[in-house]
């Protein structure tokens, strides 16, 4: 039965997610996670959100955008304005921050997504710098000094729910005719258009969705670290996120998750060697592009299906 198959697969995923959630909650309440580990746990979740959302734009739809930090900044600032200045609830602030980022995504995407490849990269990079330039120039949000004293409201439950929300929405989108339309644009834009796909619509949609989740990432970031500054969101941060996406594999969501987690952990381990770490990433980026341009996971996903199939427990063919 179709219904049965779906619920069985989802059940495993659900059980796994809940196990992670309660395990970490338990460790936190028992005080077995140090402050340092907690900070990195938060960063790990935020990085997963950022990498998965950028992957939708760069990996899936094939549009090299270098302005992800800009969307993150919008989410961070807008949400912080709502909690800090206007005393609104955190959840509402997250949503508004994300919507503001998505709106910016549409505004910047509509004109620039006509541009191809490297022109788009440069335009989006320029856009990120414009956002940063604007934040420096607005005194209401602290100018160059930034906003200090944002309430710390990001906690493990919020983080966990947002990470799961991001992954579920993007993966479900991906495995639909709409997601395939985005992939078609990456593979061959001209052929995609002659197959009746409104390429502009899907490019802007992917851009807006990616920006939306980057906005969530920014909001979570702002409400954990008290402080946001224009220098928090330079294009070097966009590059950081890009490194995760590329190493994980362009188009592979599981790859992005693994890479985001791995890089966050390595960052934490090498935190005293920040510069060396960046050199290593840079070399990795080049080596991966030269020898395995599809990234570590390629476009492949690590799926429960495959795992279960390997065990021979389920012999279903998705076609039945």
């Amino acid at each position: 039965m179709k219904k049965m198959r779906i619920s069985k697969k989802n059940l495993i995923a659900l059980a796994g997610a809940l196990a992670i959630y309660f395990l970490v909650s338990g460790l936190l309440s028992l005080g077995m996670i140090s402050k340092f580990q907690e900070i990195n746990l938060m960063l790990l979740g935020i990085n997963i959100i950022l990498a998965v959302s950028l992957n939708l734009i760069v990996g899936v739809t094939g549009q090299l955008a270098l302005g992800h930090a800009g969307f993150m900044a919008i989410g961070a600032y807008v949400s912080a304005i709502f909690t800090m200045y206007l005393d609104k609830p955190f959840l509402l602030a997250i949503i508004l921050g994300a919507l503001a980022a998505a709106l910016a995504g549409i505004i910047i995407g509509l004109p620039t997504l006509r541009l191809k490849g490297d022109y788009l990269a440069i335009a989006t990079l320029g856009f990120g710098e414009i956002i940063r330039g604007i934040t420096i120039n607005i005194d209401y949000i602290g100018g160059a000094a930034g906003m200090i004293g944002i309430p710390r409201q990001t906690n493990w439950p919020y983080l966990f729910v947002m990470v799961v929300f991001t992954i579920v929405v993007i993966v479900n989108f991906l495995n639909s005719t709409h997601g395939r339309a985005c992939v078609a644009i990456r593979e061959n834009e001209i052929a995609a258009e002659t197959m009746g796909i409104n390429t502009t619509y899907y490019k802007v949609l992917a851009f807006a969705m990616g920006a939306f989740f980057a906005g969530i990432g920014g909001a979570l970031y702002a409400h954990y670290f008290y402080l946001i500054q224009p220098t928090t969101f330079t294009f070097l941060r966009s590059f950081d996120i890009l490194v995760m996406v590329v190493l994980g594999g362009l188009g592979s969501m599981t790859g992005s998750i693994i890479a985001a987690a791995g890089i966050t952990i390595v960052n934490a381990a090498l935190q005293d060697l920040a510069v060396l770490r960046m050199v290593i990433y840079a070399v990795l980026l080049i080596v991966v592009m030269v020898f395995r341009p599809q990234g570590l996971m390629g476009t492949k996903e690590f799926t429960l299906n495959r795992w279960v199939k390997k065990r021979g427990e389920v012999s279903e063919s998705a076609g039945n």
Partner: protein
Amino acid sequence: MNLLETKDLTISFGGLTAVANVNLNLKKGELAGLIGPNGAGKTTIFNLLTGVYRPTSGDIRFENKSIVGLKPYQITQRAIARTFQNIRLFNELSVLDNIRIAYHWHSNYSVLSSILRLGAFHKGEKEIRKRSEKLLEIFNLSRYRDEKACNLPYGEQRRLEIARALAAKPKLLLLDEPAAGMNPQETRDLMDLINWVRQEFNLTILLIEHDMTLVMGICEHIYVLDYGQVIAEGKPEDIRNNERVIEAYLGRGGER
């Protein structure tokens, strides 16, 4: 009734007029050919018909409505599909996905229902999958279903491209040199295939081809293009004996 009409279709690039005052009339169900020496403007006409280029002047009417100024995807949605001279498959995707993408604009579930996995999503996906697999079966491509498109043999890639175009459910199918790079046996099979899909899918077909066996063998009406202009049109036997056509292809005898 004419399915497709062009009236004085013209396009210039800078000072160069690539297509000048071309009038095509395709009856419903017709199989017509567009031939001419290299650089005569054949593919340019396809690009005009599919909205890749916008004509400088003239009109294109499909089912009695002008389609000038529509974007390529809108023209596909009016039921005109095409293949490309240089195959443009989604190389890294599976054969099945190539077909499923072409069904995209017939799918009718929303982004929201795909994110929330509503009933419409499951119904729509099942439908797309069923149709795609059926099409693969018809084209005898089922055994390649999960193969990457770029790993298919050349002839099969051409067939996949035609299958993909048909998945968009066109009324008019434009084939740009479908037999390019095929050996005589493959070309004969292709001729059978074209004839067959035309019957089976109730199609009107316009094809560009250099292979005269194919053109003369299956086309009912032929347009000959030279320097952007139609220099002759008619039944295959008329074209075969037309002096201007012979001249265009072989040059004038006295000038040698």
